[in-house]
């Protein structure tokens, strides 16, 4: 679901095909029949943006038919934990949970607590990776092992999804009942002791205003069916860039420090205050040791200058106090608050949502540095942006100073990428860059050198961190040796000067320095473990000697769950790790994800903390309570349970609740970012169709690495829009003819593809047409075309600030779009017909009643 | 399950795209079919004229043959993708390749025609010199040898076209050699009638008449036996060319029999009609082949019919195509 694996990850799909050959059943749920669907055993057409309704239906099916893996659920998940008495569900509040504040559009999550524990953090970006802290989780959380208590998570879950029936799934998703039940049957039949099922998603799930909850919904199903931490199970995020995983682990993100440590926030006066927000003092699991991770990072950042006396330089870190995400920053550029922009290997002018917004932002900078392999639209916007045609950007009036620096390619530098399953793989240098082409390592080293020179004599305290920055990497010519950087990322024992073996070696006393605790072990024994390349046919099924997988070279996270309560594999077929009573330790085919010598039946003493507080049946070692979370008492800002909300722009009124869309979604009311209002606020007459987009196998993202290559460009030379024969008839579109797709933001022209792979859906008597486009085109390259991303608005999931780019409302009209000033006027006309202003669509609360007085529910 | 699908011209296809590549040969090859046939036909007339002592007919036809041969070589080399590599044709001798066979036949044919023509060009005042006499003797021998290969030159081009996957050529392989032989003879004879006075040109007329008659007969027979490919031959430019060819050839034939013996003008007109008819016939056939590759039905339907028939007739598979399923 939410993934077109055969097209976007073809080489990964070989494993699906192999599983299929071995008898696995492959089901593909997608708005459009894709190359993945073609190879699946069952294809299910779904309305874009209704995945939670579908998955909620599966949860409902599982729970109402007692199909869950009860032993697993009772022991390894938080199903038995009791929820705070004050908690009110969406069933009670017509689509809202308790604690909603209409003024801020956010939740006070205190009522979502477990009984007997408390949490203090409401925003996940404040807590980093380890799962949110829960005070007292290491002690007792009230629970009912029989799962009968009306306030136990299991019952809360059951009630929450009680109306997600097959009929409701049909009404919401447009999936016929038989098709849906077939999926349920296949999923449940292939889960349990002997069998496991895997769930695969990609940005088809994340790029929604309910992105995080989409994944939560998948996780709930997989936990209920016992498919987490077990071979052949799991939830797989298929990521789209060579090192997009690495760039979140070792982040280039505003809210994170390396290893998913949160960025310090305004008001965190010192290290202790910071740590108290990050992890609870009496919680379970490895995240309790976050202090060691942070201090080791500060030691790597500031070297000898970081001492216990100065909080290891914590005070030198900048603080965040809100949204500094890419879209916020873009809008700040338009508002003149950002002066310079460094862009490397990314092409926001055509690759980010609301392309016009992006380009107007670029046009309002003082300077812009673009580092890329080829000339891309982000660097050349001042002369080839569509806004030049409409007159909004004129080169002679655009002051942005642009530096384009040619970058070295992946073959021309050594370094590591972290692939989608967390495997760090080292690349050797194979060729020499030419001319001014340089690696980014060179760039940052040279920039540091120059900046350092300029502040060397400064007495300004704000320059202190620059002066104290430890930047003594071994160099090769005029750039650092990437192996040495990786070695520092791995971590050094400062008492011996040697690399540490893993994150359990890290200390909070300043005796270790480590750039990213998660990657500790990647340079174990002073050897670049990521560069290991032992052929797969010379090692076991988990291939531990190829590359290195974080954490601790572990292939499968939470693999303690692959064994039963007594530490024996659930079944012989599905064995992975197990307790060896003779040796008194965990062992198996993979590196066990559990304290090695903690036996299965272990019950920790009351005062235990951290890893020592993990019970023998707490497989989820990073979680504060050691359990898999069916119910998320904290950490997810838009609800402890996933709930079906309509996409921000939708032609359909939410059939489940009066609350139409996610009440916490981030809206950005601006003139450059108008939204088409959904029911009940607006009517879907002007933009009646559902627009969705995805990749083609033959291109890569916004096309910077594919549109310029003849061997790829020839395979998909033009932007197309796929419509069903029914929609083609409705709108008078002909195959290969021109059409333009219009949203509240833009009009984009493309060639029409009339195909049976698209089909309208019937829901509740309403026919919904969906329209699909790829998003790889832009004004430069061998093959050019309008940029799909111009059609999108910026509206984001509140948890992670990822935009909703997989669904919007649109119209499709035959012929080419208007050009120049006519285009502007045309869009203005449509907007006024639809009553769109910069404020429409930004009303978050549509439940219609005060959330404190639950209304009588409508009959489903 | 596909076996019981009713056979018919509405075969499924890949978006109507041809199955075959249309020939990359251009008009040059069609023209060569004519000039090659002309070279062969005139060589026969010239050699015969030599034997029966008809000097004007001999001289005109050797020169005509040589000119046609030069034109042929020019056209053939000109149609190559890499003309500078034309000599690679002599790298191998492949009996499976009509073009290779043709190359060697032309190689055998060419020198004699060349020698004979050069000998014809020796100015009158040098003719009695001993080198000229030697050349004459040699040319005569070589010319006769060339004439012996001329039937090959006249007809191998039918194999050249027929031994292809092009339906318009392959499906008419039984008749095409006769069509081309007739066409070559008609053009050779016609050329003879054009260059020699009627008194000397009688053999040319007989030859031309036989050729024209043969050509018309072969053409009619060919059309009668055609299957689906008839559509191509009976439509458009192809049909127009071949109709015109038939009319001209028939007229030329009539003229040859009735007029050419009596009037020089009548002979010339008949000769021109025959030559033009021959050329149009070649272009018609050539284009029919090209046209037949543009529609997948001409490839697919006969194959499918054969396959289905074989399946109906035999449980184990047919003898040309694929096994039964």
């Amino acid at each position, binding site marked *: 679901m939410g993934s077109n694996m055969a097209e976007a990850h073809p080489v990964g799909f070989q494993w699906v095909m192999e599983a299929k050959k071995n008898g696995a059943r492959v089901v593909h749920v997608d708005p459009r029949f894709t190359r993945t669907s073609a190879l699946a055993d069952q294809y299910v057409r779904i309305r874009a943006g209704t995945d939670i309704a579908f998955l909620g239906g599966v949860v409902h099916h599982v729970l109402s038919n007692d199909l869950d893996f009860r032993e697993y659920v009772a022991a390894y998940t938080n199903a038995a934990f009791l929820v705070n008495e004050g908690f009110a569900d969406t069933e009670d509040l017509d689509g809202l949970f308790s604690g909603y504040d209409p003024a801020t559009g956010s939740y006070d999550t205190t009522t979502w607590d477990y009984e007997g524990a408390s949490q203090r953090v409401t925003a996940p970006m404040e807590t980093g990776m380890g799962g949110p802290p829960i005070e007292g989780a290491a002690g007792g959380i009230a629970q009912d092992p029989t799962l009968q208590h009306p306030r136990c998570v299991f019952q809360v879950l059951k009630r929450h999804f009680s109306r997600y029936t097959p009929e409701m799934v049909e009404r919401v998703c447009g999936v016929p009942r038989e098709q849906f039940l077939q999926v349920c049957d296949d999923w449940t039949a292939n889960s349990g002791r002997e069998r496991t099922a895997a769930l695969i998603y990609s940005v088809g799930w994340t790029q929604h205003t309910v992105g995080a909850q989409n994944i939560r919904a998948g996780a709930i199903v997989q936990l209920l069916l016992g498919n987490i931490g077990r071979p052949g199970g799991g939830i797989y995020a298929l990521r789209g860039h060579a090192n997009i995983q690495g760039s979140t682990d070792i982040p280039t993100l505003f809210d994170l420090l390396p290893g998913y440590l949160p960025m310090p926030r305004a008001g965190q006066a010192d290290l202790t205050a910071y740590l108290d927000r990050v992890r609870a003092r009496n919680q379970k699991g490895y995240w309790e040791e976050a202090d060691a991770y942070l201090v080791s990072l500060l030691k790597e950042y500031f070297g000898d200058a970081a001492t216990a006396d100065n909080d290891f330089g914590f005070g030198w870190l900048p603080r965040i106090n809100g949204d500094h995400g890419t879209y916020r920053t873009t809008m700040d550029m338009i508002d003149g608050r950002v002066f310079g922009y460094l862009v490397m290997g990314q092409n926001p002018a055509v690759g980010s949502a609301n392309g016009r917004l992006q380009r107007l932002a670029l046009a309002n900078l003082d300077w812009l540095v673009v580092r890329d392999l080829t000339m891309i639209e982000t660097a050349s916007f001042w002369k080839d942006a569509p806004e030049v045609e409409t007159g909004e950007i004129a080169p002679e009036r655009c002051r942005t100073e642009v530096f384009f620096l040619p970058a070295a390619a992946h073959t021309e530098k050594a370094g590591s990428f972290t692939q989608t399953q967390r495997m760090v793989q080292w690349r050797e240098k194979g060729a020499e860059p030419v001319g001014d082409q340089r690696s980014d390592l060179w760039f940052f080293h040279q920039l540091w050198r120059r900046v350092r020179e300029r502040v060397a004599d400064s007495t300004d305290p704000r320059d202190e961190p620059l002066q104290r920055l430890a930047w003594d990497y071994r160099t090769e010519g005029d750039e650092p040796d990437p192996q040495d950087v990786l070695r520092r990322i791995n971590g050094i024992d400062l008492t011996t000067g040697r690399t540490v073996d893993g994150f359990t070696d890290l200390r909070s006393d300043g005796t270790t320095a480590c750039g990213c605790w998660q990657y500790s072990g990647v340079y174990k024994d002073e050897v670049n473990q990521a560069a290991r390349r032992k052929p797969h046919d010379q090692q076991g099924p988990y291939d531990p000697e190829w590359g290195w997988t974080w954490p601790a070279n572990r292939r499968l996270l939470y693999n303690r769950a692959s064994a039963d309560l007594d530490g024996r594999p659930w079944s012989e077929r599905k064995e992975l790790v197990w307790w060896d009573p003779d040796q008194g330790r965990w062992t198996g085919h993979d590196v066990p994800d559990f304290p090695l010598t903690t036996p299965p039946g272990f019950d920790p003493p009351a005062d235990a903390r951290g890893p020592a507080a993990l019970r023998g049946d707490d497989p989820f070692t990073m979680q504060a309570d050691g359990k898999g979370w069916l119910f998320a008492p904290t950490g997810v800002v838009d609800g402890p349970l996933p709930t079906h909300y309509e996409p921000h722009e939708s032609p359909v009124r939410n059939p489940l609740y009066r609350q139409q869309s996610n009440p916490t979604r981030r809206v950005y009311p601006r003139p450059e970012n108008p939204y088409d209002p959904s029911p009940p606020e607006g009517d879907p007459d002007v933009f009646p169709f559902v627009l969705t987009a995805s990749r083609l*196998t033959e291109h890569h993202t916004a096309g910077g690495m594919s549109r310029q290559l003849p061997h790829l460009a020839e395979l998909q030379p033009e932007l197309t829009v796929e419509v069903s024969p*029914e929609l083609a008839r409705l709108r008078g579109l002909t195959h290969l003819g021109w059409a333009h797709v219009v949203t509240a933001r833009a009009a984009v022209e493309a060639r029409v593809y009339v195909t049976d792979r698209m089909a309208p859906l019937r829901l509740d008597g309403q026919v919904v047409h969906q329209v699909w486009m790829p998003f790889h085109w832009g004004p430069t390259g061998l093959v050019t075309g309008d940029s799909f991303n111009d059609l999108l608005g910026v509206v984001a999931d509140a948890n992670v600030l990822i935009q909703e780019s997989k669904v919007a409302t649109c119209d499709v009209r035959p012929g080419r779009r208007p050009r120049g000033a006519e285009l502007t006027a045309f869009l203005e006309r449509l907007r006024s017909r639809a009553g769109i202003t910069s404020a429409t669509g930004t009303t978050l609360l549509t439940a219609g009643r005060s959330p404190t007085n639950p209304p009588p529910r409508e009959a489903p | *399950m596909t076996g019981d699908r009713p056979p018919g011209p509405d075969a499924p296809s890949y978006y109507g795209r*041809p199955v075959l590549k249309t020939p990359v040969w251009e008009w040059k090859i069609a023209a060569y079919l004519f000039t090659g046939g002309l070279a062969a036909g005139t060589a026969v007339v010239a050699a015969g004229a030599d034997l029966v002592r008809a000097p004007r007919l001999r001289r005109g036809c050797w020169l005509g043959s040589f000119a046609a041969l030069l034109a042929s070589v020019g056209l053939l080399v000109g149609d190559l*993708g890499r003309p500078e590599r034309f000599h*690679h044709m002599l790298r191998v001798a492949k009996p*499976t390749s*009509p073009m290779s066979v043709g190359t060697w036949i032309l190689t055998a044919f060419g020198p004699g025609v060349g020698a004979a023509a050069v000998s014809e060009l020796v100015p009158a005042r040098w003719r009695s010199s001993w080198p000229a006499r030697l050349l004459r003797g040699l040319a005569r021998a070589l010319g006769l040898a060339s004439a012996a290969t001329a039937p090959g030159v006249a007809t191998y081009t039918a194999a050249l076209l027929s031994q292809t996957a092009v339906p318009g050529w392959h499906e008419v392989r039984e008749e095409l*050699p006769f069509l081309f032989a007739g066409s070559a003879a008609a053009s050779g004879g016609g050329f003879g009638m054009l260059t020699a006075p009627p008194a000397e040109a009688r053999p040319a007329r007989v030859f031309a008449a036989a050729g024209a008659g043969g050509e018309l007969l072969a053409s009619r027979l060919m059309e009668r036996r055609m299957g689906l490919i008839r559509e191509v031959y009976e439509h458009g430019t192809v049909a127009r060319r071949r109709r015109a060819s038939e009319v001209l050839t028939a007229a030329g034939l009539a003229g040859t029999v009735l007029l050419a013996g009596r009037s020089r003008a009548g002979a010339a007109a008949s000769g021109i009609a025959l030559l033009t008819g021959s050329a149009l016939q070649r272009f018609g056939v050539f284009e029919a082949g090209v046209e037949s590759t543009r529609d997948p039905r001409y490839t697919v339907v006969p194959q499918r019919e054969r396959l289905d028939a074989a399946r109906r007739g035999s449980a184990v598979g047919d003898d040309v195509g694929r096994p039964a*399923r």
Partner: protein
Amino acid sequence: MTATDRTPPPPVDLARRNGYFDPPPRMGFFTDTSVCIGCKACEVACKEWNHVPEDGLDLLGMSMDNTGMLGANSWRHVAFVEQRRPGTAGPEEQTLAVEARLRAAPRGGSELGTTPLPTAPGGAVADLGMPTVGRPGDGTGAETRTDFRWLMESDVCKHCTEAGCLDVCPTGALFRTEFGTVVVQQDICNGCGYCVSGCPYGVIDRRPHDGRAQKCTLCYDRLKGGLTPACAKACPTESIQFGPLDELRERADRRLAELHGQGVAEAELYGRDPDDGVGGHGSLFLLLDVPEVYGLPPAPVVPTRSAPQIWRRVGAAAAAFALAGIGAFASAAFGDHP
């Protein structure tokens, strides 16, 4: 064509029959379309290795296929068929628009794979007047599309046991290698173009400007170095398998039996049978529909098989020609003069 003129020799020792002493086993491809994901890695890997230029930045409208056909500049071609029912061609909405454009092209569309079509997509086609029957938005359509499937097939040179292109090549540029494959030697080919018409599959074509005939070499150079051909190596799902032909035939048989066992009755092998019209392929295919649907000829016969018949007729015609000549002069020499 009515009958074969001769029974093909058994396909064993193909290379030996072509003059190689102690040749390696005959190598080939087995393309299993039932696992093809249509990614076109084969097309790209082939072009990268063999330095094949692009064949036109041309949107064809044949589902996801923008290559269209094998040709001089496309040695692998992935076909895509969106089928409402098995045994039928792609959707008429697409075929109508595509076919009109193909018919307008100088080579009827067979230039695809070598050069782009000269007219712009959509340009050649005016509004075809799509029927607007039924009320707009009627029906969801889903219920009538239960048989819908999307076929994908990576096509390639068949490396026939009896290869029409090779047989007719007058220069020996096309030859049978020691691996039993059929290769154009680029240092020899003079671009006569005969092979283009000799191939019953429409595979080989002449490259404009270059002038030479081009097609899959089954990566002759890689084979000489003991490497797998580029396309087979890249193929993510083992839809393209490479190996000794004997082994591939067994694999193909097993896979066919497996699919038939799973109820995929329409699966068939293409080019598997050594007794077929070309003596069997060096590259086998497992198809999920009749070959025509993929643009393949259903039962081609190598034209060479007609050679004896043709030459007999040519001989007879030549004899008639000679007789006519002799007769004409004999009548002149011995007959009455007018």
